[in-house]
């Protein structure tokens, strides 16, 4: 008879910010735990509420089912004596397997003795009692604490663990398991008779263990919402109930982003909008469990009103000082780690401006750089850091600063996340590039090794944003110049010393991110073909890549790739001195090849459109094929051999201006 397994770990409130990560960790680990314990079940699930970590497995077998394991023993010649009697080696082997059975099987290495390891199948209950506590406590939680003398994510206060209707005896962090779970605060305890009706029973007691159900309970009250706020509320409640709140209309005079920040900030309330997407003086709050709605609403409204009043005051104080007067105060704000202050960051950013002269008005750019961080000293941004940039723009417009510059103060923070828009104009894009490059070089110089989950300053995000801007528009600069200038700026402003290897690290980090992004819309072999050691402008790479994708089915393109590969192959094994002399060309087809090549070279360089460029390259296909069919490259005459190889090498390098076509998988 199979039963359901339930283990509910009651805890003091889990950090809501940690729930998503914890859910992933527990779900996969719990499955592996059951697999490794050979416990068969229909399915297993993990549920999380702020106060519960719940492990469930449906239709669990009573006993574990360890498969018999075939074990290879000694070779037959060793296991058996000449007269066919078991040797000491065989006896020892069987002892190790806890078995008397053995048989001979032939393997590619010859005939061997085999046996099967027999293990005792324990009861599921026994296994859980023996192994679950260690499993639970030994997972790599990134948030942990000590209480009394125990360590876990947060203090464990009760445990319910049942297999069907039978109690499983657990003792974890001084807490013994039982059948009694806790209700919502202020509500009675819940007695669990059988694991199988746990979920329904909890729901009856107004505890929704499933996060997706809680999510739906909130979402159905909303017409639009920010995902992060919704998620936070799901992770903060066991039985979410939406309640409408109001604040005085006079506060609608505040800029909308400030109102949203007050509501969404730590309170995680949902702002409401009218048909024109303007905020209304209403919001939705989420309370946990049925409470006195009137009391709760009034409480929240009071807090919201007090904070809006604060915001009005902060705005008034902020407006007494212009952004330009705030620049000097940036020396009181630390940038990151040991990278000095924001004032120093602005100084470094100014040093990158000349690279973009000719693309945007330099005076405008310099002013935008100077003002770009000034709003960090305002009271509103101090209270609501997420409004950085937004307040800069609002204050700048209020002061009558040039609209392009005002916009750039906000836009240059974009894009932060994937899917964020790219800054709208050249000024904002360039300000963003300068800002992100400075941050990129700075973080990398701190020597932080970014790994899968460890990226404390969002380095990957910064660099991805940087690349996405370059991909969006052609900004005619050399990336090498930009990176080198940024490194020089750190050297000059922060007296940091860099060696050669640092630049390599910068390039390799950038290339890796670039490759990842290109791979999202280009085939992997296209990406391999266009990327090389020199950092090319990502926009050029994109254009090349798109042309290649379009041409892939074309016969000329295939021939081009084959030609490139043939040239590579012949150059690979050859050692030769690179020196080309036209007068050493003897045969018709090599003269032809050279003539075609010299004929198209200039045209290729002058052509700006990559669709046309590749067509020019196709012009070489015929001559190359004819060359390989008719000319013997590896001749006895070393001078001639040298000459021919040198010609091929030139052509190969010429191809590589566009791409390494040999890397295309036809």
């Amino acid at each position: 008879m199979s039963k359901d397994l339930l283990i509910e770990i009651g805890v003091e409130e889990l950090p809501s910010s940690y729930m998503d990560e914890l859910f992933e960790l527990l779900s996969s680990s719990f499955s592996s735990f059951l697999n490794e314990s050979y416990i068969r079940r229909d399915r297993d699930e993990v549920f999380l509420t702020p106060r519960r970590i719940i492990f469930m497995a449906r239709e669990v077998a009573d006993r574990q089912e360890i498969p018999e394991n075939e074990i290879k023993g000694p070779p037959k010649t060793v296991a058996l004596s000449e007269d066919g009697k078991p040797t000491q080696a065989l006896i020892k082997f069987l002892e190790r397997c806890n078995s008397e059975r053995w048989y001979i099987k032939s393997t590619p290495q010859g005939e061997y003795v085999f046996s099967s390891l027999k293990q005792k199948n324990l009861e599921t209950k026994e296994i859980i009692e023996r192994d679950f506590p260690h499993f639970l406590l030994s997972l790599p939680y990134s948030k942990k604490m000590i209480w009394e003398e125990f360590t876990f994510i947060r203090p464990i206060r009760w445990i319910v663990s049942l297999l069907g209707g039978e109690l499983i005896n657990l003792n974890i962090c001084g807490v013994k398991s039982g059948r009694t779970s806790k209700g919502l605060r202020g509500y009675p305890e819940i007695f669990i008779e059988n694991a199988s009706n746990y979920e329904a029973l909890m729901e009856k007691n107004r505890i929704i263990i499933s996060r997706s159900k809680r999510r739906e309970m909130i979402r159905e009250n909303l017409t639009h919402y920010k995902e992060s706020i919704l998620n936070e509320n799901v992770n903060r409640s066991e039985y979410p109930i939406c309640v409408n709140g109001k604040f005085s209309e006079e506060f609608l005079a505040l800029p909308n982003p400030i109102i949203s920040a007050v509501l969404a900030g730590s309170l995680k309330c949902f702002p409401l909008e009218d048909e024109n997407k303007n905020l209304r003086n209403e919001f939705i709050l989420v309370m946990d469990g049925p409470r006195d709605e009137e009391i709760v609403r009034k409480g929240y409204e009071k807090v919201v009103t007090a904070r809006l009043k604060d915001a009005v005051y902060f705005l008034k104080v902020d407006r007494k000082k212009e952004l330009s007067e705030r620049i000097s105060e940036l020396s009181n704000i630390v940038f990151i780690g040991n990278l000095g202050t924001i004032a120093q960051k602005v100084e470094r950013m100014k040093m990158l401006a000349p690279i973009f002269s000719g693309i945007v008005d330099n005076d405008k750019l310099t002013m935008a750089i100077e003002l770009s961080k000034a709003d960090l000293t305002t009271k509103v941004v101090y209270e609501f850091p997420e409004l950085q940039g937004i307040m800069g723009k609002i204050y700048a417009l209020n002061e009558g600063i040039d609209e392009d510059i005002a916009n750039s103060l906000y836009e240059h923070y974009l894009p932060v996340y994937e899917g964020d828009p790219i800054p709208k104009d050249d000024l904002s894009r360039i300000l963003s590039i300068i800002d992100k490059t400075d941050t990129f070089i700075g973080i990398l110089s701190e020597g932080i090794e970014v790994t899968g989950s460890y990226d404390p300053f969002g380095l990957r995000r910064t660099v991805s944003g940087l690349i996405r801007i370059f991909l969006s528009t052609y900004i005619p600069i050399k990336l090498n110049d930009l990176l080198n200038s940024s490194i020089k700026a750190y050297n000059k402003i922060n007296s940091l010393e860099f060696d050669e290897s640092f630049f390599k690290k910068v390039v390799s980090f950038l290339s890796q991110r670039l490759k990842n992004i290109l791979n999202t819309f280009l085939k992997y072999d296209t990406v391999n073909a266009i990327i090389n050691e020199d950092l090319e402008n990502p926009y050029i790479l994109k254009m090349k890549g798109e042309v290649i994708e379009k041409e892939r089915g074309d016969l000329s393109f295939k021939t081009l790739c084959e030609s490139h590969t043939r040239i590579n192959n012949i150059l690979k094994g050859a050692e030769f001195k690179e020196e080309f002399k036209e007068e050493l060309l003897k045969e018709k087809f090599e003269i032809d090849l050279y003539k075609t090549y010299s004929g198209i070279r200039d045209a290729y360089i002058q052509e700006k459109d990559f669709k046309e460029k590749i067509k020019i390259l196709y012009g070489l296909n015929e001559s190359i094929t004819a060359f390989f069919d008719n000319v013997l490259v590896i001749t006895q005459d070393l001078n001639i051999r040298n000459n021919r190889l040198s010609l091929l090498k030139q052509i190969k390098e010429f191809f590589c201006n566009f791409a390494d076509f040999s890397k295309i998988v036809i």
Partner: protein
Amino acid sequence: MYLEEIISNLSNYWQRLGLTILPAYDMEVGAGTMAPFTFFGVLSNKDAKFCYVQPSRRPTDGRYGENPNRVFKHHQLQVIIKPSPVNIQDIYIESLASIGIDCKVHDIKFIEDNWESPTLGAWGVGWEVWLDGMEITQFTYFQQAGGINLLTSAVEITYGLERIAMYIQNKDSVYDIEIGKNVSYSDLRQEEEIEYSIYSLEEASIERLIALFELYLSEGKFCIEKGLIFPAFDYALKCSHTFNLLDSRGALSVTERARFIGRIRELSKSTAELFKRKEANE
């Protein structure tokens, strides 16, 4: 319910549970945690069970008696228990009933909020407790004090008394709080707030405060040399308050700030280490 009743009800509640009610520590501190009852209480191998009201000064929060929520000096009711009882959350929720807050009708949430005091080299894991969206309590399990990892964690519960009184009395401004019959917060505190704000935000002599800081720090180190833990800790507190004043005067650059904090932390650490050494020899 008057503020004085809130204080006595909460104190009585904790006293009935076996906590000792102490007078406030008689020095300027930034938070109830800085009182030696707590600092040495959590470090010690002995059990600790104390409750006290601690006036706390935050010079940067001075608002000339005008802001309805922010004040130079506010009051915390501080509860410290070691080892932490297994049902401490329930006990805390129950304490709210003593001041008329029924958890069944209110939305009470425990929101992650870890606490750190860089000058004390102390930090803890915990929550701020929300009552219908308002933070009324800080709930912390100490993890480290004076740079020393704690083997047995103490739980600290800090009630923000002004916040709670405003809520219970339904006031929009801290100055409207009724402390007792016919005694309002503004009667007793507003002048004080105005003067302290003027002092800490405008008038305090930076030069003399820096000199005082250096004197306090030397005296503290001197006490350490003499093996005098409690006097040394007092000077760490004096340094901390002087630093806060300098900070509110905007006298310290970022790097200087970090350096000042580091020097106070060194003194707190020495004090904690000396305390542990003495305890080990007892």
